[in-house]
Structures are given as structure tokens and as C-alpha cells.
């Protein structure tokens, strides 16, 4: 009873927020509704007993993808009004295509019959007393460990490829040297002075560390640039 109630609540919110994703005027709102939709879908997975999928949906989609979307939407200045410009003009064609698809879907579903054998294999054979997280883990990390590791190698090649083909070090990139950051003396960049009240001081500008910095381009060999990509971290924090 409660499960059924929960299902309908989650499903209704899911559909409602999915509709809002496409109809919200503000793209940021769209992404926020998308996150809500993901959460409700995860809840539906939980009700169906697929707790691992539910957690993955939250971690991967909400945690990474949706937040990434949000950043993209907020950082890129996309003119959504212009994108919607052709909406009125293409509406009749779009509606017609949708109608045809709907009719076809109806035709397919009305004539659909499951084979009697199909009903028995529709659900993956579950092992009782083992959670599906354990089952998936067993499948991926034990039965298919060879494939899992091969896929890891494929990703390694992709990473090497991206670095080889795109990373160039012209010698003027700013590199983080932690030792130098730690060795800095506050006296180099900070001036303590006593000021009388209601009297200003003249602008001192930015204070740079005074110790002589070693020439960077010279002592860095060519190969060195593959070490890490953390090159844009400014030293000491001011540009």
C-alpha cells in the first residue's frame, strides 16, 4: 500500500519535473528540474529493488553530469530566445511527425504479444540473499574482470592520446612549484604600517615576492611537460 503510494508520488513528480525541464523559460531552472527528475528516478529504482542503480544514478548523473550541465548553462552565454525563434514556424511539422510516431507506437503496442518463453527470461535470474550490488560486482569484477581491465587500457590509451595530441608547453605556462610557495616569506608581500585615523595612505600596488626566481624555460627539458596539467595555478595567488 505504502509502496504503491510512494510509486505514484515519485512517478508523478518525475513526470512533472521532466515536463518542466523542456518547458521552463530559464535554462538554469531546466537543469534544476532535471536534477529533481534524476532524484525521483533514483527513488523509483529503489522501489524496484535496484539499490545499486539508484545510487549510481544519484552519484553519476546528479553529482557529475547535472552539475556539469549547470556550469555549462551558466558559463556559456547561449541565447535561448534565438534558439526558440523558429518554434512557431516548425510547430505544424513537428506536431505532424509526433502524431505519426504516436500512431505507429499505438499500432505496435496493440499487436504486441510476448512469447511464453520470453516471460520467464524477462527478469535476470536473481540469487536470493545476495544484494544486487554484490551481484553486479561479482559480474563486473570477477566474471568479466578481463573485459574490465581491457576497458581500463582503452581509457589509458585515450588519455595518452589526448595528452600527446594536444598538450604543448611553450615554456611560458605558469607552473605550480609547491616548495617555492611554502618557502615564501610574508614580509615580501605584506607591509605593516600604523596609520592615523582619517588619513589615507598612497597605493602601494601589488607586492611581488622579491627573491630572484630561477629561469623556468631553461631548466625544464622538453619531456617534462607531461607530468601534470596543473600549469595554470598561479604562484602565490596573485596575477
Amino acid at each position, binding site marked *: 500500500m505504502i509502496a504503491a503510494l510512494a510509486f505514484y508520488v515519485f512517478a508523478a513528480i518525475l513526470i512533472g519535473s521532466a515536463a518542466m525541464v523542456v518547458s521552463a523559460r530559464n535554462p538554469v531552472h531546466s537543469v534544476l528540474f532535471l536534477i529533481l527528475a534524476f532524484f525521483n528516478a533514483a527513488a523509483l529504482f529503489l522501489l524496484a529493488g535496484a539499490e545499486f542503480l539508484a545510487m549510481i544514478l544519484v552519484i553519476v548523473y546528479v553529482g557529475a553530469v547535472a552539475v556539469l550541465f549547470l556550469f555549462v548553462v551558466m558559463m556559456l552565454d547561449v541565447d535561448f530566445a534565438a534558439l526558440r525563434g523558429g518554434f512557431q514556424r516548425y510547430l505544424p511539422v513537428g506536431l505532424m511527425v509526433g502524431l505519426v510516431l504516436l500512431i505507429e507506437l499505438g499500432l505496435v503496442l496493440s499487436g504486441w504479444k510476448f512469447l511464453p518463453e520470453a516471460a520467464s527470461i524477462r527478469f535476470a535470474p536473481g540469487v536470493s540473499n545476495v544484494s544486487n550490488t554484490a551481484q553486479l560486482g561479482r559480474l563486473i569484477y570477477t566474471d568479466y574482470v578481463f573485459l574490465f581491465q581491457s576497458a581500463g*587500457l582503452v581509457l589509458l590509451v585515450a588519455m*595518452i592520446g589526448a595528452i*600527446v595530441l594536444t598538450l604543448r608547453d611553450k615554456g611560458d605556462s605558469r607552473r605550480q612549484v609547491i616548495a617555492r610557495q611554502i618557502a615564501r616569506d610574508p614580509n615580501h608581500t605584506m607591509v605593516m604600517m600604523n596609520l592615523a585615523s582619517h588619513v589615507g595612505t598612497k597605493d602601494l600596488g601589488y607586492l611581488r615576492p622579491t627573491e630572484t626566481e630561477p629561469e623556468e624555460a631553461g631548466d625544464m627539458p622538453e619531456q617534462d611537460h607531461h607530468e601534470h596539467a596543473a600549469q595554470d595555478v598561479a604562484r602565490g595567488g596573485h596575477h
Partner: protein
Amino acid sequence: MTNWTTMNWTLAIPEIVLSCFAMAILVFGALWKRESFRMCSMMAVGALLVTAMLVVSNSSGIGYRGLFTNDSFSGFIKLLVLVSSALGIIVSLDYAEHENLRRFEFPVLIMLCTVGMMIMASASNLMTLYLGLELQSLAIYVLAAFARDQLRSSEAGLKYFVLGALASGLLLYGISLIYGFSGSMAFDRLATALSDPTKASPGLIVGIVFVIAGLAFKISAVPFHMWTPDVYEGAPTPVTSFMGTAPKVAAMALLVRAMATPFGHLLPQWQQLIVLVSIASMLLGSLAAIGQTNIKRLMAYSSIGHMGYTLIGLAAGTAVGIRGVLIYLVTYVFMNAGTFACIIAMRRRGRMLEKVSDLSGLAKTDPGLAAALMIFMFSMAGIPPFTGFWGKYFIFTAAVQSGLWTLAVIGVLTSVIGAYYYLRIIKVMYFDEAHEAFDPRPGSLTFVGGVSAIFTTVFFLFPAPLVGAAEAAARVLFG
């Protein structure tokens, strides 16, 4: 039948060791402050040799819950792939110095590519097949674009990547159809399920067609050859040399195993397709190469033709045919590696040359190089006693034994046509006006060219070990 519960971890020891070596060299190259290209390349060659020894000493069997299989067929292919990868690295040594490509990722990528090809050779499940293929292809895409400051190289990499992704899509679609219509992706289960060919549904046949299409792209057989000339021409020459040998061998092995093991009972269904692809490749390879002036493009068309000949052996569908395929692949690898070593030696005043006319009068300025190239060209044309002739001999015999007369006749005719452009290169070298001499060639190229030339020439004296090994390997697939 497979024992589905055993892992047999040790079966994949060569692959595991080679990937560990690759990662170790990667870390070494990244941390070593000084010039590390040459040292990493040497270590990579050493790692490939160690792996080859492990392959020889490894046992046969099925491991990883039926995903991976070791037999004399996979062992044969793995050794061939390892040797041609090592040749590929050696050939790149000098080129990289001249063209400013001294980057330690080059040997690392070749090693990871080799791991992919070894997985392909051992695949006994459609998923393993796909992952091995993808590991190999991805590394090749990067290698093709390795000279990133040259427009041609970037174009080659991008073109290969986009078309290769399309081919992978075709392959995956085919695999999904096969899985959907048969319920398994394991080769031996598929073979059991299809032991009665009348039960094979049309959907399954369509799936097989898609798989053949995807794999035909990787071996650049007509009609999936469009990328080959452009990519061969644009990629850095050592990469072209590597691309033309090892991956072709691995993809061909994959095609042979996929057709022979799970779909062996459906021979009449896929045979027609392989026959068509083979005829088209032989025709295009011999006719389109005639007009080429760039020797790398010419080699691209030549490789299309050679893949056509190799497919004859598969179309025969017998152990004799597969034996022919394996022998042909061995001869092809050495001819190709040797020819490309000669092409990389074509350098005048520090600049790479790629035109056939640049070879004119080579016999007077550099008799050694001219003689080596002549041996390879005679061999490719199929003139006895060089290996190319024996490769074709074993293939055509198998075709005749299986009653594929048309295929054999077309094969002989196209090799006569193809002989024209191979012999033209010899004519240019020996009878045309001499140009200025090439730059002195480095020892690495002399080594690769020499080893290949010796193998190509004297193979007919000691054919027994190779033919015996190929026969044992072929028996695994067609008992």
C-alpha cells in the same frame, strides 16, 4: 565444452606482462628529465621480445570464464604481431630523430596497440573481440595523427578516427543483433546453437553481415577501403609501416576466427560475401594502383589487393585455406616491413621523398637499397622463388581444392596486372637516369630491410617450420 567456472589467470600472462611494461615505460618516460625516446624505444623492443618468449612458453586452454582462449592459432598470430610491432618500433627510431617526433609515447602506444592485437588473437567472445579491436584502433588513430604539426598527419588521424568509429558502430550493431537472435556472445555457445544451419534466423545473418563489414573496414577490404590511401599517405611513414602490418594481421585473424569458430556451420551464408569482397579487393588493388605516383599511396592500394588474396583462403573455408592465410600473412608482414624500411630510407638532404620518380637510377647510387627494394617488389608481384609467390601458391591451391575456380583465376589475373606497377618501380630504379644520391641510411633501417630481404629470399629453402606451424594453427579452427 568450456569449463565456465575456471579463471586460468595465467593464460593471459603475456598480455598482462606487456601492458605492465607499457605502463612502466610510460611512467619512466614521464619522469626521466632527459631525452628518453631512444631509451624507451629500446626498452619497448625488449619488452616485446620478452612477451614473445612468454607466448611461446604459455599453455593452451580457455580462461577468464570463457572470454579468452589460447591455442596454436592465437600463438601463431601473437608471435607474428609481436615481431611486426618490434620492426615497427625499430623503423621509427631514425625517422623520429629527423622529423622531430622524439616522444616516448610513441613506443608506449605501439605496445598498448600490440596488447589490443593480442587480445584480438585470443578472443573467444564477441565482447573480448570488440574491446581488443577498440584498444588497437584507438592507439592507431593517435599514432596516425602523431605528427600533430603537419596538416596531413592530423587529417589522416581524424579521417581514420571518424571512419573507424563508424565501422565500430557497424560491428557493435552486428554483435547486438547476433546476441539478440542467439542469446549468447561466447563463440563456443554460438557454435553449438548454430550447429543446425537451418535454424539460423535472418536477423542473425544480418548481424553476421554487419560484423563482416566492421572487420572488413579494419583490414581495408573493398568496399570499406576508402580511408586507406589517404591515411597511409598522411600518417608518418613508420606509422604507415606499422599500420600496414600488425593490425592487418590481427584483424584478419579475428575475421578468420569469428567466421570459423562460431559461424563455421553457416559457411554457405558468409562464403558468398567473402568471395565478393575478395574479388572486389583484388581488382581494385591491382587497377587503382597503376596510376599512383606517390609510393605510399601505391602501397595502400597494394595492401588492399593483398588483403583480397588473403580472403581467398578464408573463402575456401578449409584447414588448407586457413593455412594459406597464415603463410600469406607472414610473407606479407616481412615484405611490407622491408618495403617501408626502404621508403623511409628515401631521404635527400634531410627531406623525406615519397614519389616513385625519386627512385630513378637508385641502382647506381645505392645498389644495396635498390637490390632490397627489387627483392620486395618481385616478391609482391608473386615471382618465384620469393615468399610472395609461395603465399599466393598456398592460397590458390586451397581455392582450387575447394572448387573456387573463378576466385583462383581472378586472383592469378589480377596478380599479373599488379605485377605491372611493381615491375615499374624496378624499371625506374635500374634503367632510369640517376639522381643525386640519398642521404646515408641509418643502421636501424638497414637491419629491418636486411632481415626482411633475407627472409623473403631464402624462405623457400626452409619452408617446413613455418608451414608446419601454420598447419597446426589452422587445424584448431577447422579440425
